[in-house]
C-alpha cells in the first residue's frame, strides 16, 4: 500500500527509471537468455579444438610436448614471470604429456557433446588454458579467441540445448511421467530457487561478457585498420594476398590479386563491416552483416589457410543469432529435405523430420515465451532481436 502511494507520488522520470530498473532486473534474473546460441558456441569451440588437436597430432610433441623448442624449462620460466597456469608444466615426462593430450581430446569431445556440461566446461577451460600457455609463441588470433570463449563458457549454461545432458533430462522427465514431485521443505525449496536464480544471473552475465567481447574484437580490429594507409588506399588485401605463409593456393591468391577493383572493395567492406558491427546488432541489419562476415571468414579460411581462426570467428558471430532463428532451423531443414525428397524420396525426409522433435525446441517454445513476456518486457536482449524483426531473409 505504502509503496503504491510512493509510486504515484514519484515524478515521471523516477517512475520511468524504476520501470527500467525493474525490467533490467527481470531480464537479468528472469531466464537464461540465448540458450541455443550458447549451445552452438559449446559445440563449435569443442569441435574446433578437437579438430585442431587432431590436426596437430603429428606435431604434438613439437608444439606442446617435452621435445618442443620452447623447452619445458623456458615454459616454466615464462609461467613464473606471467603467472600462467598449465597442467602441462606439472611434469616433463613424455608419458604424462601423452596422457594430457588424450585427456584434451576426450574433454573436447565430451564438451562438444554436452555430457555433464558444467564439469566438462571447467575441464575444457583448463585444457585450453594449459595447451595455449604451453605454446604461447605459436598461437594466433583464433587460438586467443578460443581461449577467451572457453573461459567465458564456464559461466554459462551451455548444455541446456542440443546436448546429451538435455537428452538425459528429457528421458528422465518422460520416465518420471505423472508422478508428483516429493514435497520439499520450504527451506530446501528456497535454497533451490536461489540457486536457480544465481545460475541464471551468472549465465546472463556470461552472455553479456561474450557479446561485448565479440563487439570489442570487431570494433578494435576496425578502428586499428582505419588508422592504416593501405586500408585507406584499398591496397591492404594486395599485401595480405602476397604473404607467403598465408597463401596455400598461390594461383588462387594471384588470381584474386589481379582484380584490383575487387581487392579495393573487399578492403573497404572489411573495415566498414568491422567498425559497424557493434552498431547493427540490435536491428534487422544484423542478418546481412552477419552473412557478409560469414562470407569474409570463409574467404579468409580458404585464401589464407586459416580455417581455425575463421571457424572461431564464425562460431563467435553465431552468438548474435536469436533462439528464434535456431528453433526455426529444423523447419528449414525439413523444408529443404522435403524439397530434395520430392526428387529423391524417403531417406532425406525421414532424417529431416526425425531431428525435429528430438530438439524439443519449437513445440516447447510457444508456452514458454508466453510465460516470459511479463518479466522480460520489451527485451532487447544481447542476442535476441527486437520483437518486430523476422527470422532469416532467405526463407521463402
Amino acid at each position: 500500500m505504502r509503496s503504491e502511494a510512493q509510486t504515484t507520488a514519484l515524478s515521471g522520470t523516477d517512475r520511468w527509471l524504476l520501470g527500467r530498473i525493474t525490467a533490467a532486473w527481470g531480464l537479468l534474473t528472469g531466464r537464461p537468455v540465448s540458450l541455443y546460441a550458447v549451445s552452438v558456441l559449446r559445440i563449435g569451440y569443442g569441435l574446433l579444438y578437437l579438430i585442431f588437436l587432431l590436426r596437430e597430432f603429428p606435431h604434438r610433441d613439437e608444439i606442446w610436448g617435452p621435445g618442443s623448442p620452447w623447452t619445458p624449462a623456458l615454459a616454466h620460466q615464462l609461467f613464473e614471470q606471467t603467472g600462467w597456469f598449465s597442467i602441462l608444466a606439472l611434469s616433463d615426462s613424455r608419458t604424462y604429456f601423452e596422457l594430457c593430450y588424450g585427456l584434451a581430446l576426450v574433454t573436447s569431445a565430451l564438451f562438444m557433446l554436452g555430457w555433464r556440461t558444467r564439469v566438462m566446461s571447467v575441464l575444457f577451460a583448463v585444457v585450453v588454458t594449459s595447451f595455449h600457455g604451453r605454446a604461447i609463441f605459436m598461437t594466433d588470433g583464433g587460438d586467443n579467441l578460443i581461449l577467451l570463449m572457453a573461459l567465458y563458457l564456464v559461466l554459462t549454461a551451455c548444455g541446456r540445448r542440443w546436448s546429451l545432458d538435455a537428452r538425459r533430462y528429457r528421458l528422465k522427465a518422460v520416465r518420471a511421467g505423472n508422478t508428483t514431485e516429493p514435497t520439499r521443505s520450504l527451506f530446501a525449496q528456497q535454497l533451490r530457487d536461489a540457486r536457480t536464480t544465481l545460475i541464471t544471473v551468472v549465465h546472463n552475465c556470461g552472455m553479456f561478457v561474450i557479446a561485448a567481447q565479440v563487439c570489442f574484437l570487431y570494433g578494435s580490429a576496425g578502428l586499428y585498420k582505419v588508422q592504416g594507409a593501405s586500408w585507406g588506399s584499398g591496397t591492404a588485401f594486395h599485401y595480405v594476398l602476397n604473404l607467403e605463409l598465408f597463401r596455400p593456393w598461390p594461383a588462387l591468391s594471384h588470381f584474386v590479386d589481379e582484380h584490383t577493383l575487387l581487392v579495393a572493395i573487399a578492403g573497404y567492406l572489411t573495415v566498414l563491416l568491422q567498425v559497424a558491427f557493434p552498431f547493427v546488432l540490435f536491428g534487422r541489419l544484423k542478418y546481412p552483416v552477419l552473412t557478409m562476415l560469414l562470407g569474409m571468414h570463409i574467404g579468409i579460411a580458404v585464401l589464407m589457410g586459416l580455417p581455425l581462426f575463421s571457424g572461431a570467428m564464425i562460431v563467435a558471430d553465431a552468438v548474435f543469432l536469436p533462439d528464434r532463428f535456431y528453433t526455426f532451423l529444423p523447419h528449414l531443414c525439413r523444408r529443404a529435405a522435403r524439397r530434395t525428397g520430392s526428387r529423391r524420396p524417403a531417406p532425406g525426409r525421414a532424417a529431416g523430420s526425425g531431428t525435429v522433435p528430438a530438439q524439443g525446441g519449437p513445440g516447447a517454445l510457444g508456452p514458454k515465451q508466453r510465460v516470459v513476456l511479463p518479466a522480460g518486457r520489451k527485451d532487447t536482449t544481447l542476442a535476441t532481436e527486437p520483437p518486430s524483426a523476422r527470422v532469416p531473409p532467405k526463407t521463402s
Partner: protein
Amino acid sequence: MSSGIDAADVEEIQQSDSGPATQECPDAMAAPSGLPRGARARKAGLYTAVVLCLAVSVVHVILVFLHVAPANTVSRRYSPLINAWVYPFFEQNWRLFAPDPESVNRKILARTAHTGSGGSVQVSPWFDLTAVDRSAVEHQVFPSHTAQNMLRRAWAGYVDSHGGDDESRTERALMMQKYLSNIAADRVAAHNGGTFDFVQLRVVTVSVAAPGTRVGSRPSTPVESRLLPWWKVTRHAK
C-alpha cells in the same frame, strides 16, 4: 511441458516474477508479510550476489575494452589496474593486419658449425627454414601452426625483445634467443642429421611489390639481410 529443461525454465521464470516486486519495495515486503529472518537474510544474500555478478561483468568489460582500445588517456592513467586484471588470461590483441598488413616476406636461413677433433671448423651451407614452412603450407587446407606460426612468431618475439642489435639484455631477450636457436637447431638436425656445436641465422627481408607492378616482371629486391651471431647449441651436440 515436453521436457525437463523447459520445466526448469518455467521455475526460473516464476522465481523471477517475485524478484522485481520485492526489488521495488523491499521494506513494504519485509514488514507486514513478516518473512522469517532467515529468509530475509537469504534474499539479501541473493541480491548481493546478483549485484556482485553484474558489477564484476561490467568492470571486466570496461577493463577489457581499455586493454584492446588504442592507448588513450584513460587507459594510460589506469594501466596498472588494467594490466593486473587482464594479464595473463584475458590478454588479447585484435590488430589483425592493422594498422597495415605486413608488406614483406621474411626468409630465415640457418647454417651450423661443427668443431672437428683436430680443431678444424666445418661450416654447413645455408639451409632455408622458411622454404620448408612455405612448402608445408602450400596446397594444405589446414596448415599446421608449426609452419605458419612457429618460426614467424619466434622471430617477431626476438625482434621485439632485441630491437636492432643482437645482444640479449633482458631475461625475455635471452629466452627468445634460446627459443629461436632451438627451432633452428631442431630443423637443421631433422634435415641434415649429424651433430654440430654452433648455429647461425640469416634473415632476408623481401618487400612485396606495390600493386600494379606485374609479378615477375621486376625482381623483388631484398631490403635487408641481417646476419645473426653464432650461437652455441647443446641440443644436437655430441
